[in-house]
């Protein structure tokens, strides 16, 4: 009975907004489901189990053979999602009382059944399931099962359920395969820790604490090293005789999205770095990198137009030698020596910044306006490389946010806990309207930064000043000024204003300021790094 149980779990995960509640659902799954089904379910949730044998067209044909085309069209129109339509409309057969398949049974049969046998196999399963089970099965066999951020969440749930630290689970994770029998045996105290040797393994990353300007005074400059904090995605490169992997900061295998990096990893080492889009030696805005994320296949055009590289921060392993216990300075020397020897393509070293005092460093920090730099990293010269966020070893010293006074234009209700409040705000700045007047152009959307009291106040104000409604969105009178802070402004052709803000949030409600005195678009454009000259 485990496919229906898996379907019930999926359904609750889809509807449950809270992270803690999701963790509770997953813990319950691990505690109550038998092997090997719980491991197959875990693999399905974390994206390790991907079937591609059954194409959506197969499901389309199956349902077309069993339903009236007019009713199918009306139903699809109403439901929206086609897989869900099929799951709901699939005619239930009286007397089809074979037991529904187990998850492991589904996984195995999909591997073993020749292509021609798939339609009958899948139709037979659909006949034994209820609507929820059918939806789970369709998503499973067509590879459409996506549960947001599930892998990290599932490992956290495993940790909570078993009492083992999540870092310990991540260390062995890539050395075990579905249905993870040795992993569960270890977690339940019935077996030894799975040995991840051979296969490339994810080593949990070392993270930094945010540093306040005030705390800087207590630091001795001689004990600290400074580097830029690059605005890309943090990755770990692991390569050796057992294979090559690129891992995201949360331990997801993102190798498939960056084939050119994978090609360049002809070495035996584990490295920490920042994945960036680099054109002609310059780092491109984060928005460019977004086009490369979450891909299983990368078209050649994209590889050419959005080239990626890795800026290296640290060397964790050289060959089989674990460098993590060494002080940072020693690892840095090893990194520099290694890079000089190995000369890997598409990789360079994150430069170290020389400074004599923190006052000098602060000046360097505020002088760096490039959108590709988020601020500075401070690393203690003697710090070993340790998993997680250990206080006092690494600091991130972000530069001060930029700020504009913008006019509230539209508001939308939030999600989950905030769904009864208007909590998402689109704001705009003034620009010439081409007819001698001024118009507002939307420049961004913010859904954080305010206090609960400010949220309640904004919600009331929005309801009282609505001038039009479009579905969940309200357009409001253009009279309220909000101080919006953000980390960077970047050129964007996808935005009407031509500029995109990085992490905008509400700093203050400026009831004291008339809307006419809000900022103009040109004030914002002045913040954009690499601004093309007007005659370009």
């Amino acid at each position, binding site marked *: 009975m485990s496919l229906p149980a898996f379907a019930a779990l999926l359904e609750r995960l889809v509807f449950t907004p809270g992270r803690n*509640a999701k963790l*509770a659902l997953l813990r319950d799954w691990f505690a109550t489901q038998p092997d090997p089904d719980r491991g197959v379910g875990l693999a399905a949730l974390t994206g390790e189990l991907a079937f591609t044998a059954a194409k959506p067209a197969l499901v389309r044909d199956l349902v077309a053979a069993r339903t009236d085309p007019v009713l199918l069209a009306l*139903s699809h129109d109403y439901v929206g*999602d086609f897989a869900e339509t099929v799951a709901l409309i699939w005619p239930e057969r009286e007397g089809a009382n074979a037991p529904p398949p187990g998850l492991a049974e589904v996984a195995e049969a999909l591997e073993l059944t020749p292509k021609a046998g798939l339609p009958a196999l899948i139709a037979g399963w659909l006949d034994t399931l209820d609507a929820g089970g059918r939806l789970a099965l369709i998503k499973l066999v067509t590879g459409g099962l996506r549960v947001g951020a599930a892998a990290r969440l599932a490992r956290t749930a495993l940790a909570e359920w078993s009492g083992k630290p999540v870092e310990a689970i991540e260390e062995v994770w890539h050395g075990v395969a579905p249905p993870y029998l040795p992993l569960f045996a270890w977690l339940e105290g019935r077996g030894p820790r799975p040995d991840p040797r051979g296969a490339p393994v994810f080593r949990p990353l070392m993270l930094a604490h945010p540093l306040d300007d005030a705390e800087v005074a207590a630091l001795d400059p001689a004990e600290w090293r400074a580097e830029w904090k690059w605005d890309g995605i943090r990755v770990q490169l692991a390569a050796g005789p057992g294979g090559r992997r690129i891992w995201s900061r949360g331990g997801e295998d993102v190798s498939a999205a960056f084939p050119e990096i994978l090609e360049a990893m002809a070495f035996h080492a584990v490295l920490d770095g920042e994945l960036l889009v680099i054109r002609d030696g310059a780092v491109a805005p984060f928005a460019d990198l977004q086009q490369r994320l979450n891909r299983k296949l990368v078209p050649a055009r994209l590889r050419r137009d959005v080239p990626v590289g890795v800026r290296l921060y640290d060397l964790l392993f050289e060959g089989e030698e674990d460098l993590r216990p060494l002080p940072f300075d020693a690892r840095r020397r090893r990194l520099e020596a290694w890079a000089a020897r190995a000369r890997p393509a598409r990789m360079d070293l994150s430069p170290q910044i020389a400074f004599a005092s923190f006052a000098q460093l602060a000046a360097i920090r505020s002088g760096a306006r490039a959108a590709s730099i988020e601020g500075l990293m401070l690393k203690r010269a003697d710090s070993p490389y340790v998993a997680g966020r250990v206080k006092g070893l690494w600091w991130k010293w972000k530069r001060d946010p930029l700020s504009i006074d913008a006019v509230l234009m539209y508001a939308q209700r939030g999600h989950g806990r905030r769904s009864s409040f208007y909590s998402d705000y689109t704001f705009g700045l003034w620009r010439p309207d081409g007819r001698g007047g001024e118009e507002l152009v939307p420049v961004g959307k913010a859904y954080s930064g305010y206090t609960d009291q400010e949220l309640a106040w904004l919600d009331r104000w929005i309801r009282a000043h609505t001038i039009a409604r479009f579905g969940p969105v309200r357009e409001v009178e253009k009279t309220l000024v909000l101080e919006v802070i953000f980390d960077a402004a970047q050129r964007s052709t996808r935005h009407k204003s031509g500029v995109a803000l990085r992490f905008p949030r509400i700093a203050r409600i400026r009831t004291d300021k008339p809307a006419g005195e809000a900022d103009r678009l040109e004030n914002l454009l002045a913040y954009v790094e690499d601004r093309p000259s007007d005659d370009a």
Partner: protein
Amino acid sequence: MPPHPETWLRVTPEGLFCVPGGFHIDPLRPVARAVITHGHADHARPDHGAVLATPETLAVMRTRLGAARAGASQQPLRPGEALTERGVRLWLRPAGHILGSAQICLEWRGSRVVVSGDYKRQPDPTCAPFEPQPCDVFVTEATFALPVFRHPPPEREAAKLLHSLALFPERTHVVGCYALGKCQRLIRLLRAAGWDRPIHLHGALLGLCRLYEELGVALGPLLPATAADRAALRGAIVLAPPSAVADRWARRLAEPVVALASGWMRVRQRAKSRGVELPLVVSDHADWDGLLATIVEVGAPEVWVTHGRDDALVHALGQRGIRGRALHLVGLGEEDEGPEAAPAADAA
């Protein structure tokens, strides 16, 4: 040759009108003489002259509308009894929708029409089951007339709620349900599943639960729910009108699990757009299979569709050689499960 029902049962702006009998069925506006199928707000409206209905429906109308607006005069008619109005024979049959709900059976000069009102075929311990009545024209609703709507066994949905309570014993489970019918049916389902602790009720549900008990439907221990009782409501079941569960009222409860009991919950997007964490597919309307089975059972060669997805139903009837006709009656389907009844979560 008996007259075709079209000649003596007409669609008027007030709703269906029986010409020889001189009365309306479930009229939209105040009329002199009304026959009412059941007590939901879209069928039983205030300020008619003479009102005829089952004794339970009349009692519901007095509770909901106040005695002064529940008809200048009220005439009870029990299922099984019949009367003749100006040559029109009239009798009632249970519709299985909510307590007191009835189909209105009319016969004039040998021609017979059954107006079902709202109905369902699933068992419901709070009301008498639907009794099919063969007829020449069957007037049906079509609220869930798409083949994607197939209501699961309600016991399974109740078990889903209790399983969630076992998983999250610290969280208040607040279940949106319509005050009349759905609320009491849910309580009975939970009782049958073994939940004998008090069930807490939003103020808007208290009156009708009291009436059900007076009419002989035992509901077990019930307590009024005030959101102020955060601590006391941990791990409790709170029933509330659908409009309240997405509102700030519910957000004040202890980490609420927001559930909603409705046939629409079968479609994910419907549940998501209402911020529901635990959708419960419990409906007091016939589902797709129920509609078709009923129409086949009553054997009518012609079916009129009052409201809902008449396009799909008329299409399916055509394939079975049954003439379908969409009446497009306005004002129906505005109770809990009517598509219009999904007020956006903001009641501002």
